[in-house]
């Protein structure tokens, strides 16, 4: 076998191995999307009921709770950025990071300081490499988050918003995550969690045509709100984590599918080249034999004379 042909053969082998791996990753991701979607759906009833309850308290009482009233001049905002732990998911993490950068710029232009909280190794690495300050970060569960993870993340955020701004607290709470629209579409979005913009929430419930009844609060509206809002934040974070996980798997599936396709194309063109190289080798061998034979024939014809 010629040197050229051997090189092609070796490359085809390497690409085939890569293709097998990406194909396996694609299938694993595809099966996990379904699981992740199911988790998103399972968490929906709790989130809906909780939002309804929060709306009911916030609109049904004149409670002036620090978590629902907007500060006149907000000076600090916390941003929670949700990225993935692992790569090989196309532009998934970098899109989320870019969305966070845009939000950060917007908040900065409004004269707010930004405290960053990060979920996922990719985001931590990005901020670490640029030596940016990160208040807190969590890693190790982005592909399959549990409610306890959301609770762990929410705790310092709730504490920060309850503190006075002068003592290191924040006035606003934003979250950046990748929304799962469909298998093919996932968007990096940012949303303000707190203070609650009641207009949005109220609008949503009136759109659905339900009139909120006048609730009796047990023990009191303030106490209910006090207990409700941390749960609300946790549930929002949990929902965001689940959607982000589903998006991560979908993004990985797509990235791995195109990697598999590319590997297939590469194998095809490499085997064409290998065939051409083999053919060239054969042609050369034939012409060498023919050349050698005719030289021999010429030589014997000469000696006969």
């Amino acid at each position, binding site marked *: 076998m010629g040197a050229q042909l051997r090189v092609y053969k070796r490359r085809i082998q390497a690409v085939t191995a890569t293709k097998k791996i990406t194909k396996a990753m694609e299938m694993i991701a595809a099966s996990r999307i379904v699981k992740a979607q199911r*988790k998103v759906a*399972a*968490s929906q*009833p*709790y989130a809906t*009921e*909780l939002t*309804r*309850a929060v709306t*009911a*308290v916030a609109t049904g009482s004149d409670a002036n709770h620090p978590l629902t009233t907007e500060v006149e001049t907000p000076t600090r905002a916390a941003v929670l950025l949700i990225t993935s732990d692992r790569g090989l998911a196309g532009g998934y993490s970098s899109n989320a990071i870019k969305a966070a950068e845009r939000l950060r710029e917007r908040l900065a232009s409004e004269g707010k300081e930004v405290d960053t909280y990060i979920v996922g190794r990719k985001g931590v690495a990005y901020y670490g490499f640029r030596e940016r300050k990160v208040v807190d970060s969590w890693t190790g569960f982005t592909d399959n988050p*549990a*409610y306890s993870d959301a*609770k762990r993340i929410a705790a310092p955020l709730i504490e920060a918003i309850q503190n006075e701004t002068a003592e290191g607290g924040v006035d606003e709470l934003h979250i950046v995550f990748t929304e799962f629209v469909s298998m093919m579409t996932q968007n990096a979005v940012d949303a303000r969690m707190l203070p609650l913009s009641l207009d949005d929430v109220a609008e949503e419930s009136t759109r659905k045509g339900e009139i*909120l*009844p*006048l*609730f*009796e*609060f*047990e*023990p009191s509206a303030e*106490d*209910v709100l006090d*207990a*409700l809002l941390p*749960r609300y934040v*946790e*549930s929002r974070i*949990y929902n965001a984590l689940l959607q982000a996980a589903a998006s991560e798997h979908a993004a990985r599936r797509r990235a791995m599918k195109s990697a598999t396709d590319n590997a297939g194309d590469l194998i095809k063109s490499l085997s064409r080249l290998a065939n051409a190289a083999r053919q060239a080798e054969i042609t050369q061998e034939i012409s060498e034999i023919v050349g050698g034979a005719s030289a021999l024939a010429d030589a014997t014809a000469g000696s006969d004379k």
Partner: protein
Amino acid sequence: MAAELHVELVAADRSVWSGEATLVVARTTSGDIGVMPGHQPLLGVLESGPVTIRTSEGGTVVAAVHGGFISFADDKLSLLAEIAELADEIDVERAERALELAKSDADAAAERRAEIRLRAVAVR
């Protein structure tokens, strides 16, 4: 037909139980409360403890909830809890083991969780 109320018992990551009931008894921070059809709209904070649901078929469903809320309006009652388990789902032996472990480790939160589980089973 006797009046009924629709009950949704949901935990953070799943819907635990839903169905029609005639009476729901739960413990709020200011005391036990029983809700029957036609009750005034209510929103309360739940204590960790057992919740008893009397179904319209005459059966009784007991669940252990760990913190959460009760909200009632238009004969629809929702019980929201971070963690909620039906008494039938609770593994008594495991809860007892967890209780002992929590006692020896002096883990107050785990001890309370295990106790609530056992109480819910006892009510059943």
